[in-house]
């Protein structure tokens, strides 16, 4: 009940924070690449994409958000690293909810789709999902802007 009164907070850090994190992860990539043999573009695309997401998650409050936690966890899993994120307060989420007839089935379906899109959305209740989605959208658009700038800057004149 106490969480109901919490105001919706979707503040996102400044754009240069995103830029910084992204550049840092790119430089990390480069450092890794010096040891590896030259790779295919496909692999590089994947790596850059991952770097983009991870840096975005880091820039946007690290483990404070559910979606960023999920992203970081996923990235750590892909690296086969056992990374222990700081424990969050245990939340009792009822995953097997009672589906009442009153709920709009179309709405539920859409919410389910959104749940698949937002990282870590599987275990969220709908109102939390909305909040996380708002934050996620803000961060994504920020990241897109940063990447766009970088691409524009790199583009051959």
């Amino acid at each position: 009940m106490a969480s109901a009164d919490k105001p919706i907070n979707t503040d996102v850090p400044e754009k240069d924070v995103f830029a910084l994190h992204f550049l840092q992860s790119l430089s990390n990539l480069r450092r890794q690449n010096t040891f590896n043999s030259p790779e295919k573009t496909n692999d590089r695309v994947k790596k850059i994409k991952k770097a983009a997401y991870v840096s975005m998650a880091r820039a946007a409050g690290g483990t404070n958000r559910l979606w960023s936690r999920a992203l970081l966890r996923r990235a750590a899993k892909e690296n086969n690293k056992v990374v222990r994120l700081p424990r969050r307060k245990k939340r009792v989420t009822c995953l097997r909810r009672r589906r009442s007839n009153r709920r709009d089935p179309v709405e539920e379906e859409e919410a389910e789709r959104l749940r698949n899109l937002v990282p870590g959305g599987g275990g969220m209740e709908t109102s939390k999902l909305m909040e996380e989605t708002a934050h996620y959208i803000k961060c994504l658009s920020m990241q897109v802007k940063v990447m766009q700038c970088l691409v524009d800057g790199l583009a051959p004149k």
Partner: protein
Amino acid sequence: MMMTMMMNGGEATEAELFLNCDDMSVLERQRVQLNYHQYHHPGFEPTLPCFFPNSSKMNVGEVDSFLPSAGLDLPEIYGELHGDARISVSPGNITTESENSKKRKFGCVDTETKVCNEKKKMMMMMDREVAVEEEEEEEKSKVTEQSTRSIMKMKEQNSCSNDSSKVTKDSQRTDYIHVRARRGQATDSHSIAERARREKISERMKFLQDLVPGCEKITGKAGMLDEIINYVQSLQRQVEFLSMKLATVSPRVDFNIDDIFAKEVVSAPMMNLPNTVMPPHMMVNSGYPHDMVNSGYVHFNPMQQVVTSSDPLSCFNNGQSATMWDSDVQNLYSNLGV
């Protein structure tokens, strides 16, 4: 709200206290005295809580109003008592809402004991004075008296608990559940919870609506959700596309950050935008030492320039970010270039 709840709690505990007090030997005399008073003035019983003034101001008010109106046989003693009671009680009862409950309770306990002592003294005196005359009558009426008293007590207690429970229920309802059932709406707890949940969701939806462009025109939750999903998907696709571009645009560079910055140092002067920081080409050209060029400060400048130039609508504040970069982020940036 808290005040009323506390009062209710006080009354509830008072009732218990009252019950317990019957067994206590300390208040035994008081009880006898009570008997006596009730015998003389049947109106005394309702104001019984005044013996335990930890509940509220109201009770003290009752005492104040009661005593003059009671028309007692011993007005001078009562006047004294009244005065004493008021003096001793006042520190505890001038409590306002700002004081916390614990403090208040302690104060009240103190005053309570004080009052009890005062009362006891008075009662002793009165005992000596009146007991002789009233003894026979008291003896006679004691049995019936006690029975009626217990009944009244029970009644009082019942009403007390009823009142308190009612009011606390009300307060809880108004405190926690903001969804009110309108006409024709179900009022069982499940429906109320469901309605609260839906209200919460729609509130967040409204929040999301402002974020997603083109979502204002759409009415209906399903359509809105659809739009939000599309937007998220498009953003994710954009990230993928841009990372592809980044990977293909300059394979030679291979994310050599130094190279990127070198490139941008060249390209930055072409876009002359108002920048509070000294333009990087000037720094490079004006004979800065080479290690300075490699340091974070110069690295940052072209980046910032590029970011601002290619996205003029961004909320970049050059002056502000310059100070920020200078302080914390510069270290990170200097670590960037190997």
